[in-house]
Structure formats: structure tokens, C-alpha cells
């Protein structure tokens, strides 16, 4: 028998209320695994090319990872998928928590929604089946209230809810889908896709068993893995050295002295979470400052960075929080002590949020950042894009492109807390200038005109993540060339050292060997990392977990599924899924020029002070190497006909 997957997905047509359940072959799972691999295959097959992503015919999917619920550690993530209304290409967003397993317990690997309900609805999926319910009373509610009300109505605390907030209802193109009171599948604007269907929320629960082919093998793998993870300090030494060896190279380029030391990654994530990285990132040039136009420590000073340190965040931490099957536990629930949510609790802000509402807008008021984080989580707004958009508006104001008439009286400026909070509130509610900004910087710049485009920092319409591509050019490749542009959770040069898959996949070693010069070798490793990330995502694994130690992914996959495939077979699957998502973009009419990374992210011109002084990225050359390694056509930015055929997905695009 096979295992890992349930073997079917459902499609709910919200226009007619009809549900279709589709069984899939073992071969289908071998080809696309689960998560967004399965999602991209199903949507490519069933959705007409070139449709408006907010049209009723568009599909929205919730996909569990292939390893979710099998007992493999770090495997609790699910993906929301569809055509991105923000970029016009393939869209997916990844989220932790405990929902992924409930999708499978409810007897499905994925559920897709098409059509549009006449009135707001929510959908409950459990052992009894799929039920569409009236959401009139929930519409307009924030994500925390909505989740509480649904769980209370169901009387089942095991139910896990994915919901949009006000931003998704108002079709903000920078909105996402929220679960567990503040974990968010944030990127690609899929909250708007959900809102366009009048779908407020989906609840999942079930008692179904998730099949595992060789449960004893999983137990053995876990025993070894957890023993390494918990007890063997040498493992942590190896880890950190691996991590630091790369960083030493990176840092040496910036002139920072670098000796190696064990234990850092795990120590930082488990003690502080990702916000424990804020100060370092601010000072070395990883955190983009003042809309990517200023410099760490020179402009965003060490005093400012120190005010928003992880240490200061966890002073308010009430308890730690771990996602399903996660031994690391980087999350935390904090007491909110000021602002409109004073007296309540919420998720602590991640590094991305600390940077987006911090250095990116020269802002260092931690209490306000915590409030902004909670506002966005409750509204279902992506904090990266929201921060990027507020920073864009501030710069437009500073440059005289927007004035107080345009901003409804707001006297915007760098670091001005009250104005930042007010503007974010206006974006959430689409009030005044907030209505223009709620669709992200690209759409806003088009509406504002007058040269605003110069300050709209994005790639392909998506605001960039909080990792400066001038420091790590791998991010430049990811931002510009990946199927979902502007994102940091795929690959970078740093990631390449952490998890290029060199040990796991012979193919990676061959790719590096064949690459040629030093730059090509680095891009080859980066590309391998991106391909490996497809496997990590589609199996529902967490990047932070996989980054923090050698993860025996092939062993876990073979134990769960019984496929007993060679490592390179899986690597080919990763290539297939990567190519599929990129080919989807070509089918939807995207061209390489449409996802161009903003010139500031490339150091054109280079900065004249600070940690990134003199740095620029030759993206043309990196992009050429990257596409060549993938077997993509430089002119289209997607797989050639030959590559589609080799990867056995040519029929999807026939």
C-alpha cells in the first residue's frame, strides 16, 4: 500500500453549491506530491487560461502537505493556492499552525473553491462532509473573532479555521488568509481571491486516519532525529558551523570579522523566534532601510535597532507556541500592553514584520509595531506588503508626490508612529488614500502617477521581503525569477549553504560540478536550493526546521509513501513543480520584464554609505545562468517545450 496522502480532493462550486470529489492515482502524487504541487496541477488543468483572478471561474485551493500528519517533524504546514490577483501569475502562500493535519483528517488532501456565493458564506468540512453555511453574521468581523465564533458554533475545539479579515472582504490585493489568531498565509494576495468568492472562512476537522506505509520506519527515523535534535550537542555544533561557514563568506565580503561558533540558529529561534534576528539584520545591511534607500546603522542607528530587539519583544511573551509536529517552537503569544488591543493577547511579530514596520519606515516604536502586527493579523493583511506600501506612501509624501489633501490630512513622515498607525488603519478599511494603497505599491503608483512608480519597490507587483538583495544576491534571483516574485522563502545564497540538498541529492553535486566558474557554481547551488524548496513546501515542511539541521527528507518520504524512490527522482519532482508554476505564469501572459526587481534592490546606483556601500547586483548575468540551469527559455522565463516534456507536464500546457 501507499501512504502519506489520502487520495482525493474536493471542489466546491460556491455558485451552485455543488461539490465534486475527485480521486487521484498514486502516480499523480508521485508527480506532484501535495501542497502547492498538487494545487498547481489541479488549477492548471481545471482553470481556463488568462481569466481574471477575481472572476468566479478562478479557483482557490487549500492544500495539505504530503508528509503532514505522518509523524514527520516540522510537517504541519498547508498552502493556499490560486492565480495571484497581486502579480497576475501563479500564487501561493504557506502557513503553519495545526490546520494542515485537519484537512487530511477530514478525508482530503486539498479542497478547491470555484464560483462565487450570492451571499457571504463559510464552509465546514468534517467527517460528515462539506457544508456551506451562512456567514452574514461573520462578515465584517476580524479574524480572531471569526475563528472564535466558528469554533464556538461548531462546539469542536479541534476544528481549525482559515479565515479572511476585513482586508480580504474588501478585496485588498495584499491580503491573506489567517489561522489560529494570527498565523497567516500572507503572500500573493490570496485573501482577495477568497473574498471575491464571498467565502469568509473554512473550518476543517476530522477523525480520519492518515495512512503511513511504514509507521515503524517513521518511528525509527523520529527516534534518531529527535535524539540528535535534543541531546547531541555536537549536532548543534555541526549545524552552526555549517551555517556560519557560509555566513563567514558572506560577512567577509562586508568586511566583518567572522569566526565560527556553535548553536546559534536553534538557540535564537527557540529563545526569541525570528524576531531575535532583528538587530543583526539591521546593522549588517540585511534589513532594508527607509524604503530601500538608506543604510543600516548610518540612518537606522544601533539605538533604534536595539529598541526593537527580540529581547524587548519577548518581555511581553506569555507563552511559547509551536506548530503541529514542531520540536523547535519559534512562535510566541504575547500580552499586548498598549494601543487598541491593550489587555488582549496576540502572536509576537516575526522578523519580517519588525523590519517592515521598523527599519523600512525608520520607525522604532516597538509597542506600535506590536499593535500594527495585531491590526494586520486581525484584518488579514500581509505585514510585508503593508509595510512596503506604507513606506512607499511616506516616500511619495516626502518627495511631494502626495500632499495632505491626498492623504486626508495625514502629515506623513519617516518614523511617525501616529501617522503610520492611522495610514495602516485606512488601508485596512480602504478609507481615503487607504483605498488607493490597499492593492499594493504597483497598483497605487499607477493611480497616483507623477513619478510615484520610482518609489514603488516591488518585483512583479509583490512588495519585497525584508532581506536586502544587495547583501545576498540570491534574493535578487528569487525576487525576480521565481514563479512567485518578491519572496524570501524559496532560496538565497545563505539558504544555499544551509539546504542546497547537496548531501541528499547526487544531482545537486553534479549540477555544481558542471556549473563552470565560481559565479555559476553559486547560482547552481542557489537553483538546487530553490528546487529542494519545492519538495519542502509540497510535503508541508517548515523551512526554519529544515534549515536548522540535516533533514532526512528522502527517508521520511519513502517511509510514509512506500515509493522507495531514489533521491534524484524526488529532485526531478521538485524541478517539475518549479517548472509547472513558472509555466503557469507564461500561460497567463507574464513575461520576464513583468517581474523586474526594483533598481534599489539591485544597487543601481549603489549606496554611498553604510554596510551596503558600493554594492550592486548583476542580475542579467545571474538570471541567464539560473534559467540555463533550469532548462528555461531566457526569452520567456519559463520551461522550454523540451523541459516540459522531460518533466512530463507537457499535456497540462497542450
Amino acid at each position, binding site marked *: 500500500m501507499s501512504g502519506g496522502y489520502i487520495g482525493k480532493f474536493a471542489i466546491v462550486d460556491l455558485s451552485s453549491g455543488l461539490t465534486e470529489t475527485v480521486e487521484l492515482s498514486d502516480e499523480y502524487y508521485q508527480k506532484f506530491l501535495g501542497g502547492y504541487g498538487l494545487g498547481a496541477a489541479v488549477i492548471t488543468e481545471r482553470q481556463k487560461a488568462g481569466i481574471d483572478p477575481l472572476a468566479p471561474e478562478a479557483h482557490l485551493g487549500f492544500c495539505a502537505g504530503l508528509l503532514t500528519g505522518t509523524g514527520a517533524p516540522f510537517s504541519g504546514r498547508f498552502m493556499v493556492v490560486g492565480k495571484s490577483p497581486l502579480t497576475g501569475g501563479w500564487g501561493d502562500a504557506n502557513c503553519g499552525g495545526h490546520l494542515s493535519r485537519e484537512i487530511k483528517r477530514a478525508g482530503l488532501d486539498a479542497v478547491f473553491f470555484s464560483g462565487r456565493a450570492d451571499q457571504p458564506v463559510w464552509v465546514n468540512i468534517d467527517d460528515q462532509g462539506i457544508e456551506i453555511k451562512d456567514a452574514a453574521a461573520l462578515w465584517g468581523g476580524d479574524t480572531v473573532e471569526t475563528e472564535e465564533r466558528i469554533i464556538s458554533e461548531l462546539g469542536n475545539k479541534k476544528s481549525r479555521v482559515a479565515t479572511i479579515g476585513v482586508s480580504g472582504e474588501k478585496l485588498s490585493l495584499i491580503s491573506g488568509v489567517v489561522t489560529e489568531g494570527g498565523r497567516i498565509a500572507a503572500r500573493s494576495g490570496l485573501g482577495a481571491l477568497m473574498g471575491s468568492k464571498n467565502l469568509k472562512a473554512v473550518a476543517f476537522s476530522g477523525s480520519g486516519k492518515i495512512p503511513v506505509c511504514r509507521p515503524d520506519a517513521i518511528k525509527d527515523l523520529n527516534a534518531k532525529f529527535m535524539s540528535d535534535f535534543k541531546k547531541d550537542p555536537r549536532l548543534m555544533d555541526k549545524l552552526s558551523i555549517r551555517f556560519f561557514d557560509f*555566513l*563567514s563568506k558572506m560577512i567577509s565580503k562586508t568586511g566583518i570579522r567572522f569566526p565560527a561558533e556553535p548553536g546559534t540558529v536553534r538557540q535564537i529561534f527557540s529563545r526569541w523566534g525570528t524576531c*531575535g534576528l532583528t538587530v*543583526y539584520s539591521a546593522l549588517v545591511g540585511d534589513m532594508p532601510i527607509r524604503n530601500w534607500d538608506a543604510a543600516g546603522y548610518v540612518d537606522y*542607528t*544601533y539605538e533604534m535597532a536595539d529598541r526593537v530587539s527580540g529581547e*524587548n519583544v519577548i518581555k511581553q511573551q506569555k507563552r511559547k507556541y509551536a506548530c503541529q509536529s514542531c520540536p523547535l517552537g519559534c512562535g510566541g503569544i504575547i500580552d499586548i500592553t498598549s494601543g487598541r488591543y491593550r489587555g488582549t493577547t496576540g502572536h509576537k511579530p*516575526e522578523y519580517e514584520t519588525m523590519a517592515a514596520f521598523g527599519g523600512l519606515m525608520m520607525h522604532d516604536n516597538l509597542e506600535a509595531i506590536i499593535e500594527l502586527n495585531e491590526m494586520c493579523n486581525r484584518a488579514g493583511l500581509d505585514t510585508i506588503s503593508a509595510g512596503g506600501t506604507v513606506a512607499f506612501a511616506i516616500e511619495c509624501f516626502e518627495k511631494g508626490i502626495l500632499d495632505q489633501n491626498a492623504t486626508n490630512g495625514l502629515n506623513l513622515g519617516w518614523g511617525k508612529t501616529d501617522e503610520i498607525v492611522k495610514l495602516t488603519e485606512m488601508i485596512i478599511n480602504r478609507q481615503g488614500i487607504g483605498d488607493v494603497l490597499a492593492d499594493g505599491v504597483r497598483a497605487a503608483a499607477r493611480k497616483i502617477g507623477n513619478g510615484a512608480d520610482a518609489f514603488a519597490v516591488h518585483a512583479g507587483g509583490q512588495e519585497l521581503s525584508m532581506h536586502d538583495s544587495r547583501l545576498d544576491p540570491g534574493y535578487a534571483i528569487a525576487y525576480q525569477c521565481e514563479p512567485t516574485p518578491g519572496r524570501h522563502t524559496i532560496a538565497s545564497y*545563505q539558504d544555499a549553504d544551509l539546504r542546497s540538498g547537496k548531501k541528499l541529492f547526487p544531482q545537486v553535486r553534479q549540477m555544481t560540478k558542471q556549473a563552470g566558474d565560481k559565479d555559476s557554481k553559486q547560482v547552481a547551488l542557489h537553483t538546487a536550493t530553490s528546487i529542494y524548496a519545492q519538495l519542502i513546501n509540497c510535503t508541508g515542511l517548515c523551512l526554519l526546521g529544515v534549515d536548522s539541521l540535516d533533514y532526512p527528507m528522502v527517508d521520511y518520504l519513502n517511509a510514509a509513501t512506500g515509493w522507495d524512490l531514489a533521491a534524484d527522482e524526488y529532485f526531478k519532482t521538485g524541478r517539475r513543480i518549479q517548472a509547472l508554476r513558472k509555466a503557469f505564469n507564461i500561460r497567463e501572459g507574464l513575461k520576464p520584464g513583468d517581474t523586474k526587481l526594483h533598481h534599489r534592490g539591485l544597487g543601481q546606483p549603489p549606496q554611498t554609505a553604510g554596510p551596503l556601500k558600493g554594492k550592486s547586483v548583476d542580475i542579467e548575468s545571474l538570471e541567464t545562468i539560473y534559467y540555463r540551469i533550469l532548462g528555461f527559455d531566457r526569452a520567456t522565463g519559463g520551461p522550454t517545450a523540451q523541459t516540459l516534456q522531460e518533466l512530463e507536464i507537457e499535456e497540462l500546457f497542450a
Partner: protein
Amino acid sequence: MFGTKERISVKIKLFSGLDRQAKINHYDPDSGLDLQLSQGARLKKVFKTLGLSKSKSTVCFINGEKAGLNANLKNGDVVFFMKPASGG
């Protein structure tokens, strides 16, 4: 005064778990540590004083700017010690 070495005061802040590695009795992340050093002291002196090994991966910033072991310290400097890691 002739024959007396002047002293300088520098503030030390420890990040990334270095508070647990330094050989110090107590560390308050808010106030950091105030160290009195001789005039002309270099950064390596702080490593020694804190009991942090120089061979380990610790990155230092004086008033926010990265600094090497031989950097000179002056009165009122703020020194951040941390381990390199980014992401999230």
C-alpha cells in the same frame, strides 16, 4: 594627574545568547553592562574582560558599525556583541 592612567567607560550589550556565554554574574538586557577600561583600550580587551573566546563567531559593532578586535574604544562607546544569523 601625572602617572595616573585615565579611565574610559563603555556600554556593552549582548545579543544572540551571548549573555549566557559570557563569564558574568548578572546581565540586564535593558541596561547592558558598563565597563571601565584604560584609556586606549581595544575591543579585544572587552572579550577578555567578558570571558568570551575570540576564536568564536562573534560579530562586534561599535556604535552600530562593525569593528575588528583591534578597534580602539573611546569613552561613551556602545558595543554590541552578537552572533551572525539572519532570515525569518
